[in-house]
């Protein structure tokens, strides 16, 4: 693409405002859709694995050590290496990449779900038990709604990491938002490189915003408070669990 100036910001602006980049199978909307497709599929699989496991361990307290060490090891796995390794061992298709991303998403979701169940006040659980609720009812009516905020914090952290990391898939299989970075570097097109980085950052911020809204509205009205600052004082332990469940972006 020809730019009117050698200034990188001008090139970035021109690349972003060129209508040609906003249409077709190689355009920005299509790449965003591919990217979100990876995120959706990955989260679906990660939730299917982590939610039952986290609820089970959180409710029964069995296998806690296993979860802590398993999560630690998974967290240390370099996702870039896993995406590339799976691409070589299986195929440069969608599924190997998704499974590598699932390994990234499971730790924050799993520890978020587990921490959510554990964050529920034990006296509340005991009260429910003494009222004759079955274990299943305790899990679904007491632990789940009360721990939901912490749980969704973990899910949000997982989504954020997957949105960020799905960009590396483009280096193994040419789709998703990382493609703009790959192409920008290969053909030395700085407008595409920096414009692509802007799109990636914007998508990440937008998705995180949606997750934040979801987190806010999914909370039972009885637990919702109007002043989050005051609450963070009272429940610093809970907030901390959310903060530390956030892990890191990649």
């Amino acid at each position, binding site marked *: 693409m020809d730019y009117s100036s050698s200034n*990188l*910001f001008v090139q970035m602006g021109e690349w972003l405002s060129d209508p040609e980049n906003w249409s077709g199978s190689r355009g920005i909307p299509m790449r965003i859709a591919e990217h979100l497709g990876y995120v959706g599929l990955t989260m679906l699989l990660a939730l299917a694995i982590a939610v039952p496991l986290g609820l089970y361990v959180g409710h029964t307290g069995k296998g806690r050590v296993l*979860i*802590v060490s398993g*999560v*630690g*090891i998974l*967290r*240390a*796995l*370099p996702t*870039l*290496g*896993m995406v*590339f*390794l799976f*691409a*070589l*061992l299986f195929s440069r298709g969608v599924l190997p990449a998704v499974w590598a991303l699932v390994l990234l998403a499971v730790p924050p979701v799993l*520890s*978020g779900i*587990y*921490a959510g169940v*554990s*964050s529920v006040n034990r006296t509340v659980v005991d009260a429910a038990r003494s009222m004759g609720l079955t274990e299943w009812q305790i899990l679904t009516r007491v632990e789940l709604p009360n721990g939901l905020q*912490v749980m969704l914090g973990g899910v949000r952290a997982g989504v*954020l990491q997957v949105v*960020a*990391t799905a*960009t*590396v898939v483009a*280096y*193994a299989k040419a789709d998703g938002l*990382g493609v703009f*970075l790959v192409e920008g*570097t290969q053909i030395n097109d700085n407008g595409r490189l*920096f414009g692509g*980085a802007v799109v*990636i*950052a914007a998508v*990440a*911020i937008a998705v*995180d915003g949606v997750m934040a809204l979801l987190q806010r509205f999914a909370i039972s009205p009885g637990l919702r408070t109007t002043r989050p*600052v005051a609450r*963070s*004082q009272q429940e*610093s*332990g809970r*907030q*901390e*669990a*959310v*903060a*530390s*469940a*956030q*892990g*890191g*972006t*990649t």
Partner: protein
Amino acid sequence: MDWISGIIDYVPANIGQLRQLTGNHLLQSVLPIVFGVLIAVPLAQLARQNRTLAGIMLTGSSLLYTIPSLAMFVFLPLVLGTSILSMVNVVVALTIYAVALLMRSTVDALTSIDDGVRQAAVAMGYTPLRRFLTVDLPLSIPVLIAGVRVISVTNISMVSVGALIGVPSLGRLFTDGLTRNYPVQIAVGIIITLLLALLLDLLLVLLERVLTPWARSSTTRRTRAAALDARTVAS
């Protein structure tokens, strides 16, 4: 097993390169941790004293935290004027994430300190600075280290991503392995990365034991360990 023999053959033949990449990798993971703590602790103390400032800093840092590292690695050279291949970009990006993560937990840790302890220090005539350094800070070390452990693990994994734009690290083994269609090389990179993460985590656990001698003694240890346990699980 050709996997194992492949790895056993690969390592000695490339030991020089592996050593150099591991060194680069460690440098890029550890420096952000050090800078992150040095920046986040004073900022957290400031944030605790000023609510408006706290709101601005926490919102700003969580926004920065949301920006994917690959985008950050691409952008920072523009802002800093560094070469795109420079390790400085990776160190600065990871420092930003470290500050964002640590500040929140450090504010909580500082706020959760028993007010009686703080007032005792005031009554003994401690100046605010001395009180902060000798009372508040040591008492928040367990939380601080819990945060640092999360950061160290994620940093070690994230540094590899820099290899995509050409910054030397163990990630080079992944990019080379992919282009050469050589899974053994990637596996070696993953194994070294895991070992580094484990090693750094052990060092941090040791550091915590050294820095919090009171936690080792008597009954307080058990309750504290239980509290920390919940925290580590959440991380």
